[in-house]
């Protein structure tokens, strides 16, 4: 079995579906009635984008590219925590 051609087909299928899902998340972020909906959409969007970055990094054959996924999944967590702290307690300390 030729790994490279099979993986190319898998990547083609997955990239189309992931792009469509990104578009749907973006539409929810535009429509969202409250701020919490937008932040929920950002949460999903960033985790899925990190997964897509790892899959795409195998195709590009570069480990420098794939290391951006760790940073993305860690920083996106910060927005949730700061929003929660602002809404519940009114004050934020950095």
């Amino acid at each position, binding site marked *: 079995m030729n790994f490279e051609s099979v993986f*190319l087909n898998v990547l083609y299928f997955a*990239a189309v579906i992931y792009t469509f899902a990104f578009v749907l998340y973006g539409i929810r972020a535009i429509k969202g009635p409250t701020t919490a909906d*937008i932040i929920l959409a950002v949460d999903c969007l960033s985790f899925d984008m990190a997964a897509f970055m790892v899959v795409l990094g195998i195709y590009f054959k570069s480990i*420098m590219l794939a290391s951006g996924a760790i940073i993305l999944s860690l920083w996106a967590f910060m927005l949730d925590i700061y*929003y929660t702290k602002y809404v519940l307690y009114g004050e934020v300390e950095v």
Partner: protein
Amino acid sequence: MIELHLIILAIVVSFGFVFSYLAMKEHDLLKALALSSVQSTFFALGFYILAAPDIVLAYLAIAVGAYTALIILAISKTERYEVGE
């Protein structure tokens, strides 16, 4: 495969443009901050597809992390809603 790259890049950058416009026109500053973080997440994927990993590392730490934390700190010290014309 190269066409698929370019299509993904076009979609991502167009969404970033739309979100930056929405963040500019918003009167609730917290909502504007959330919209701006959506824009920076989309642009991170755009830089990734352009094969610039060092810019991705710096842009994520600044635009998704430190920027949102500082703006929420500023909002909590001042007012949330923009008033007046």
